[in-house]
């Protein structure tokens, strides 16, 4: 089957143009961030200004802490629930799945106001817990569906063998299933980490005025909002600071992330 060289070149050109558009805005802030405030040439000056004025050191740590906690706890409870829903007859299992399914497309907007009231009642507003606890709840639907899909794909023979060896259900999960669940859990963790790291609305509402707990996107939003009139190069540097950790993680994990998202979405 031959397709003309001209068509091949044409399609690749189209692809290059599409990629150019996808990458250009990010490239343009990287270039601005390296500009010197006065005169030509490039330098790191904007970064140190942004770093010191925008409190990004603590913001990046906060983001990492919140995201890691959410991912860890969600992964554990999703494994347990996904395992049960895939291999046992859970009372009301269908109902549980149906409700979680709705949870997958739910807009956070409908939960934020009561969450704010509830968490301020508990005295947790402006603490890490105000971000960690709700985001575990909101990540549970994805996590449970993900792990359930994985445990259903495990050959029946493995469960059978574990049972014949006299393993309890928890032992079956721990000794027979978790060792082969690594890739599924890793992909799920990557996706959850990305979502949690980038979450903005919850941070804006639940961490309204405690700089020490602000996440990176929130810090950037405050910084660029107040600094709008001043130096756009410094704002660009701040944006790059917030983007860099996630871009580094992406470079390392992109294959897992993309195949996970595309196949998982359609699964």
């Amino acid at each position, binding site marked *: 089957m031959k*397709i003309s060289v001209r068509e*091949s070149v044409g*399609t*690749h050109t189209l692809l290059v143009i*599409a*990629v150019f558009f*996808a990458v250009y*805005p990010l490239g*343009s*802030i990287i270039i601005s961030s390296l500009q010197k405030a006065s005169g030509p040439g490039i330098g790191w000056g904007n970064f140190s200004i942004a770093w010191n004025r925008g409190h990004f050191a603590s913001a990046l740590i906060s983001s990492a802490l919140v995201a890691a906690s959410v991912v860890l706890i969600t992964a*554990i*409870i999703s494994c347990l*629930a996904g395992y049960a*829903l*895939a*291999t*046992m007859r*859970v*009372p009301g299992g269908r109902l549980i*799945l149906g409700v979680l*399914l709705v*949870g*997958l497309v739910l*807009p*956070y*907007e*409908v*939960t*934020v*106001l009561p*969450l*704010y009231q*509830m968490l301020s009642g508990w005295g947790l507003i402006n603490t890490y817990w105000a971000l960690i606890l*709700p985001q*575990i*709840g*909101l990540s549970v639907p*994805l996590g449970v*569906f993900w792990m359930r*899909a994985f445990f*259903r794909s495990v050959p029946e023979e493995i469960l059978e063998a574990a*049972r014949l060896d006299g393993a309890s259900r928890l032992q079956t999960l721990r000794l027979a299933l978790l060792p082969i669940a690594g890739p599924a859990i890793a992909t799920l963790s990557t996706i959850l980490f990305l979502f949690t790291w*980038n979450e*903005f609305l919850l941070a804006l509402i639940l961490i309204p005025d405690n700089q020490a707990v602000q996440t990176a*996107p929130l810090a*950037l*939003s405050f910084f*660029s909002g107040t600094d709008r009139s001043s130096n756009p190069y410094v704002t*660009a540097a*701040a944006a790059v600071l*917030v983007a860099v950790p996630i*871009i580094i993680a*992406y470079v390392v994990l992109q294959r897992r*992330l993309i195949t996970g*998202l*595309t*196949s998982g*979405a*359609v*699964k």
Partner: protein
Amino acid sequence: MTFVTHRRSAVAVPTGPRRRSRLTGPTWSSLPYVAPALAFFAIFVIYPICVSVQTSFYNYDGLTVATFAGFSNYVNVFADSNLRAALGHSLLLLVFYAALPVCIGLLLAGAMSRIRIYGLTVFRALLFLPQILSSVVVAVAWRGMLASDGPVNWLLRHIGLGAFATSWLGNFNTALPSIGLIGTWVEYGLCMVLFLAGIVTIDRSLYEAARLDGAGPVREFFAITLPALRPQVSIALILTITFALRNFDLIWNTTRGGPGTSTTVPSLYVYLDAFQNRQLGQASALAVVLTIIILIVVAIVQVAVREPSAHPRRTRSLRRIQRDGSAR
């Protein structure tokens, strides 16, 4: 994200887990496994939704005693001219956030299905880049792009269209479409990557058969590529539409609804009414309406973009192409 899972489970349930669970015995003991996840979901998602629904029937400023309001908050969602305008903006944004990216994605995916692509992994990774960036970073980047002295206007001036140069996000006429185009930018890579993943799974012999049949690129696209991409189109629409209807982050960090009220959306009013105007009942009603709209749209997409089996005509034409191809 794994939204379509339920379709699979609906098919697989009779053989898979039932048989399994009969062997694993009685079931109330399975509850401890499910309980932690359900507890988090119930406390931090279901309970807040119930509170939102309840609050939506009251006039409440968060401090004084709430008074029962009946459906008046819901009537306001559609009667208040500001809120109605916000819903209208959301509908327009659907074109930019969902329709355009899916069309661009399909067009490019259609072109790509016909050739061997070199460097696919690199293309895919770069196209997906806008998806992984925080919306605040996206907002900062595009505020720079669209500023009066930004690259977009620079380009316009250099190709002799300087008359069109403007402060894109500050101009009443251009702010909303500009935000729409930012959404297109965020989403088209996702659509392409989804469709590319689908195309890889299409049986190449279908294309060979179609070509032997003398089908051109257009017929090939409609007879093979598009029907095969149904699941991907469905998920792309659900993801992009949900993103378009929520859309708080991007607007908050670019225009905050301005200039004037030209870029307001429902989620922005949910935030403003709840945390600035102290109209908690109104904010809740709006959030509930937004949720219902999203659920309805997702349901419509699920039904509209069904599996090919629901469209026997298409499958038959597919099969015919395949049969003719192998006969030769």
